[in-house]
């Protein structure tokens, strides 16, 4: 299982705020979405952007980079910002076709920018400037509080907080929903027969393997297009069922950001990383504790992103850089 030497950043190091909601790696640049500004870490230094610099709102919830143009799309509590070569352009529900200013998540696919907002999903065509809105009137969603989006070439997935998962087929332009077969109860009666819970916080689509990973406040799910596999704290390596994010490496491997540590599944074995310890749980369920000299900034983990073999971790008390020990 991967081992890391952890380097932690807080406000004292130049991070805009210790409450880090998200992190996005763009080559040698690392973007931190914090409660009080957008941070950029590059060449060992932090640069901070706030509304006085043009950012739509100080509370930044998500970041996505357009790989073709390098433009940075920033989801904030007060609209969507595009940061391009030093210039911010802002899109709000008053000034544009954005559905709502509370933008929880953003993703880029081709010419489209997809946003997850508190009032449904929006899709912005960067060539024509057209906005398309998706809500309960034109999709199966029955809750419009969309929390996260994962954009693939053939599918786009939304985590709908309290409404399960929505899938958009790029080719057919049709929507499909996935829900908890147990309804909105907290019981798991029909295990592995659907999504583990309706309160979804994150989706991650491993496009090459066509596997969807879902994080909820009550466990995690993996879907291969036909079969569901659910993960709970009681019988997996998850340190908690309360998940803020899932980020897939591929169809077998994924990272889980929970309120009790960062978890990694390699397909069979689990590892958990949190202050003062690393735990490894094998396929048989045997747990081994590994002492570490360094650890992530806090056990309340909100998001991760990867930089080669390294990992960057957004926590409630700072941003952690996990430098892979080879």
């Amino acid at each position, binding site marked *: 299982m991967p081992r890391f030497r952890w380097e932690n950043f807080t406000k004292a190091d130049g991070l805009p705020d210790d409450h880090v909601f998200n992190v996005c790696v763009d080559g040698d640049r690392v973007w931190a979405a914090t409660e009080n500004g957008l941070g950029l870490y590059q060449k060992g230094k932090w640069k901070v952007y706030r509304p006085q610099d043009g950012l739509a709102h100080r509370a930044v919830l998500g970041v996505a980079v357009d790989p073709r143009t*390098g433009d940075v799309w920033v989801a904030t509590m007060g609209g969507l910002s595009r940061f391009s070569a030093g210039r911010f352009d802002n899109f709000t*529900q008053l*000034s544009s076709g954005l559905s709502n200013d509370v933008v929880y998540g953003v993703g880029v696919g081709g*010419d489209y920018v997809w946003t997850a907002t508190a009032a449904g999903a929006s899709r912005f065509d960067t*060539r024509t400037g057209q906005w398309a809105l998706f809500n309960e009137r034109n999709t199966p969603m029955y809750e419009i509080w969309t929390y996260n989006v994962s954009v693939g070439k053939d599918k786009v997935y939304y985590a709908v907080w309290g409404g399960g998962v929505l899938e958009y087929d790029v080719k057919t332009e049709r929507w499909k929903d996935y829900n908890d077969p147990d309804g909105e109860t907290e019981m798991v009666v029909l295990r592995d027969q659907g999504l583990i819970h309706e309160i979804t916080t994150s989706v991650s689509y491993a496009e090459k393997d066509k596997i969807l990973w879902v994080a909820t406040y009550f466990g995690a799910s993996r879907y291969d297009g036909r079969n569901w596999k659910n993960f709970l704290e009681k019988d997996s390596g998850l340190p908690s069922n309360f998940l803020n994010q899932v980020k897939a490496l591929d169809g077998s491997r994924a990272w889980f950001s929970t309120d009790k540590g960062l978890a990694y599944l390699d397909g069979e074995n689990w590892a958990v990383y949190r202050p003062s310890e690393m735990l490894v749980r094998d396929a048989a369920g045997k747990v081994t504790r590994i002492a570490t000299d360094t650890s992530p900034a806090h056990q309340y983990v909100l998001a991760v992103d990867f930089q080669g073999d390294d990992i960057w971790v957004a926590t409630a008390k700072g941003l952690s850089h996990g430098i892979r020990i080879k």
Partner: protein
Amino acid sequence: MASLTPTPNPLFLLVALALTALAADRPTPPRFPSPIELAFSKDGARLFALCEGTDEVVAYDARSGSIVRRIPVGRVPKGLALSPDGKHLYVANSWSDSVSEIDTAALEAVRSLPAGFEPNSVVTDLAGRFLYVANRISNDVSVVDLVTGAEVKRLVAGRGAAYLALSPDGASIYCTHIYPNPGLHRTPPESEITVIDTARQVVKDRYRLPNAAGVFHVALSADGRLGMAAQLRPKNLVPLAHVEHGWVFGNSISVFGEDVGNAVGEVVQIPIDELDRYFTPPFAIVLAPDKTAAYISTTGSDSVTVIDIPKLLECIRSATPAERRTMANDLSASANYVVTRIPVGSAPKGMVLSPDGKRLYVANRTDDTISVIDTASRKVTATLSLEGPAAPTAERRGERLFFSARFAFQGHFGCANCHLESTFDGLQWDLEPDGFGKDIVDNRLLEDVAETAPFKWNGSNPNLETECGPRTEKFFYRSESYDGWQLADLVAYIKAMPLRPNRYRLASGELTPAQERGKAIFERTRTRSGAPIPESNQCAVCHSGRHYTNQQLADVGSGKPTDRSPLIDVPQLTNVFLTAPYLHDGSARTLEEIWTVFNPKDTHGVTNDLQKDELNDLIEYLKTL
């Protein structure tokens, strides 16, 4: 049995026949070449003149000055560039949204390449593998793979991306813009030079141009250490109370690069005007290969300004940082570096130096000639003809007047200073001495205005003759204006301005589902709850007819305390997608804001019962008008 086919009224038939006969006899109006850009072939044997008016490239034998071929391209071509190997010439067809690729040996167009909305300028990278296209309406730069012919990406530029220049080392492309970037209402305008990294094909920097709105050609010195961009600095935040002392426009150049000595991306803006004479608007820039001189065409002043570059750089370097920041407003500064002004033809636009640097060729747009200047003597030594129609029409004479600055006091500005290339400038002005700060008005598109009287936002001018005649003389030019014949010609030109294609309508003429839904909202007579909407508040009643205006005055609640009256002449909506900002004073930055911010009481149509996606649909429909 009665016939089911109605019998035509004989009188109607007679009239129809007469009209048809008249139309058949009416000659097709002649088209004038209107050259705007020039380029030499790699071997210098051919001179290419891009003719906006006749949709063609005219190829000259450079030695004899005779026309060899006229090469048809797309509609309203605006920019051209040679490939590095000289084998192809690329032409941006601004109203076809395409680029023509011309084989320079065969002198014919061989391929059409994609572009964004209203391509204005083209340049290839140093390898000739990728073509960059500045798109003026989509505000971006297309990157086109010349091997596959496909567009690979779009790079977001500023508003009105219009002119491109490749650095001599090929590492960067500089893009300038004819409109200012969107900003807060009644704040100083600002433009930018977008800098593209050609290796990664991304935007790597944006040089801020404070107080600039209307930036044209950009050029780099042969050693790449000096860049210059031609620009206007409009003084739109102060009332247009007088004209002297640079009160309305500053004509200037943004200077950047290592030679300037500032930090990267920090430009110095220098004036080219004199204390009592203006040279406007500066359009094209050509730098001598040995960097001794810069040539700037000033379209409304029918001249070319020559700048001594060493003296210019000395002037900049000897200035303190504070002086550099304000140099653009010092009308005495140009005496340090302007060498001479060379009179050329009517409305000089693009220029090119002969490969040996001995001659400067200047395209004179409205007299269809090319002036040839000997760079040593700095005099016009020859004039080439585009062989356009022998006699100008009323519209052509009017066009010359439109682009000329000679009527304004001290040649300060002409119609085309604000109505850039017959459009608008994206700014709001306080135009008349009705009290400072009163009746701030947004500049408007001039296409399709012919049948939309009355004029002026408050509708107080009953016709274009009043709009452009005494009012212009008294409140704009502060000088003797047009005589009766000239005014008639000017009005004829304005009325004849063709309408640019709408980019949001499908080619079939059908509407998309969103546009259809929006049309239904535009035309609705009842609210969502079924309550009737008064006719005076129905969109399609005020915005009715071919131009989407009933040509009446209306109070839509958009009046501000600074307006003398809340009554507004209902504006036409043709190509409204293009003309941000909105409302009479430009206070709505986007179409959305007209209703999300400025319609709290449903006085400008009933919209507060609409869901967000319905408002989006309405806007999708408005964009098709």
